[in-house]
Structure formats: structure tokens, C-alpha cells
């Protein structure tokens, strides 16, 4: 099973990279863009068939190491 973890700065935490990308898009006249948030994706190959267990394990990984929950949100997709 594969776990795809998406990590981004929490809403309300200023995302300077997102802001810079937004300005660049505006200068290219992509005027429909209202906001940009830049995050990172971590893909984990898991040796596990149990979705429930995988979700619990990856959640613990996010809380302990992969995300800093003071400033970041994460979501987990199992495929």
C-alpha cells in the first residue's frame, strides 16, 4: 500500500512561498488566481494491507516527525 502525505502551512499562517508564486502568476496575467499555498508531498511505500492500521501508523508518523503541527496541517491518502 502507498500513503501519500500532503503537508501545508495552516490556514492563517502566512505562506511566503505561496505569496511569491502568486505574484509571479499575476505578472504572467493569470488573474483568476485568488490565493496560492505551497506545500510538500511525502510518498511512503508501506508493507501493510490493513488500511485502518496504515492510517493509524501514518497519522502517528505525521504527528511525531513528518509535520510540525504548530504551523502545519497534513492529510493522508492511502492508495
Amino acid at each position, binding site marked *: 500500500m502507498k500513503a501519500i502525505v500532503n503537508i501545508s502551512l495552516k490556514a492563517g499562517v502566512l505562506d*511566503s512561498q505561496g505569496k511569491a508564486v502568486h505574484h509571479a502568476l499575476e505578472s504572467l496575467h493569470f488573474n483568476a488566481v485568488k490565493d496560492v499555498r505551497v506545500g510538500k508531498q511525502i510518498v511512503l511505500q508501506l508493507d501493510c494491507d490493513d488500511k485502518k492500521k496504515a492510517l493509524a501508523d501514518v497519522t502517528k508518523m505525521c504527528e511525531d*516527525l513528518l509535520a510540525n503541527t504548530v504551523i502545519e496541517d497534513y492529510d493522508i491518502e492511502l492508495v
Partner: protein
Amino acid sequence: MTKVTILQFPGTNCEYDTQYAFERLGAKTEILWHKADKVPQDTDLLVIAGGFSYGDYLRSGAIARFSPVMRAVEAYAKAGGKVLGICNGFQVLTEARLLPGALKRNEQLHFLSKHHHLKVINNDNDFLKKLNVGDVVNIPIAHHDGNYFIDAVGLKELEENNQILLRYTDAKGNIQNPNGSVESIAGICNKQQNVFGLMPHPERAMETILGSDDGVAMLQGFLKA
């Protein structure tokens, strides 16, 4: 004589500057590799030196926080031992939750390396007791992720407990924020006032030939009288 133990992770690069600085002030020093499982018993101050622990992979300080020595550091801090985190060391201390908040990428997205002024906000602690409230010191900064963040509730707590120690200013003491840090915060301590963290590098300001010796007064506070 004061004994200062300086932590060294893979990627630490300020351990020898820190050693030089404290030895110049008359302390005895030891550099401790991160695989150690305990802190030397006679340690009076533990310093987490600057650098790029584990290449700053994932986030600055995120991986160092799980090095074997960090368990001993946590126990040492909880028992009241004094800990100072400089730059990457500050990031490691926030990741380890020994200090509140987190360090984000600098607002302008640049790596900043220059001298910057700081104002002393609170000197009722070992770190800054040789300085006066309102003093302005000139200390180098060198960081990519020095943008201190804490939520509104946490900020209120820091203020109420006098945990904000240093703010970024200009030479006259007017706020001048280089990196977007909340309330221009450059350094804080924990509630118990035994764990200190700052982004600037006092160990690089020990001699006027290097541009400033204002680091002397900052680090002297930790020495036994």
C-alpha cells in the same frame, strides 16, 4: 569553573566557534557527539550550536530532535539544567517542544547573513543578566528559517511570563524586522527560564575585529561568578 557542553549533530558547523567563545570567557568546554546517551554530569550549560543538523532535511531541526542525545537533553532541561540553542539549536529546541512556537522560512525567502541589532527586552535571567533592558547589541544573523511563529494564545503567554528576551531592531532600538518573525522576536526562553533560544549568533561577536564584541556580555551571564 563553568563547564559548557556543546552538542554536535551531523551538519552542525558552529561548535568550534561556540567552544572558542566560551573558552575565551574562561569556561571549560566539551563537544558532545549526538550519539551520546547522557550529558556529562559536571555540565553547567548545554549549548545546541548552530549549523544545518541533518542537512535541514524535512524541516530545520526536525530530525536532530530524535538523535539519542536529545532524550538526555530533555531530562537535563526538565531537571532545571540550563540549555542554550543558537540558530539551528533554537530550531531543534522548538521541534523538541522544549521551547514554544516554530521557525518558518524567512518572509523574503532569502538566506540572511549580516550583522543586525537586537534590543534586550528582559534581563531577569542568566542569559542576559550582564545587559540592561533596552540595551541594543550588534550580533550577526545567518539563517534561512528564522521567521519565528507562534499563535495569538502562545504569544500572549510569552508576553505575560516575560519569555520574550530579544527583538530585532535598528541601531537606535527601533523595531526593524529582517525575517517576518512574529512581533520581531529574535530570542525567547521557557517559562522556567532555564531553556533559551535565539536565531542570532553571539559566538560570532566576540572580538571587535570581527565587527562586534557584543556577544561577550550575552554569554558571560552563564558563567559562574
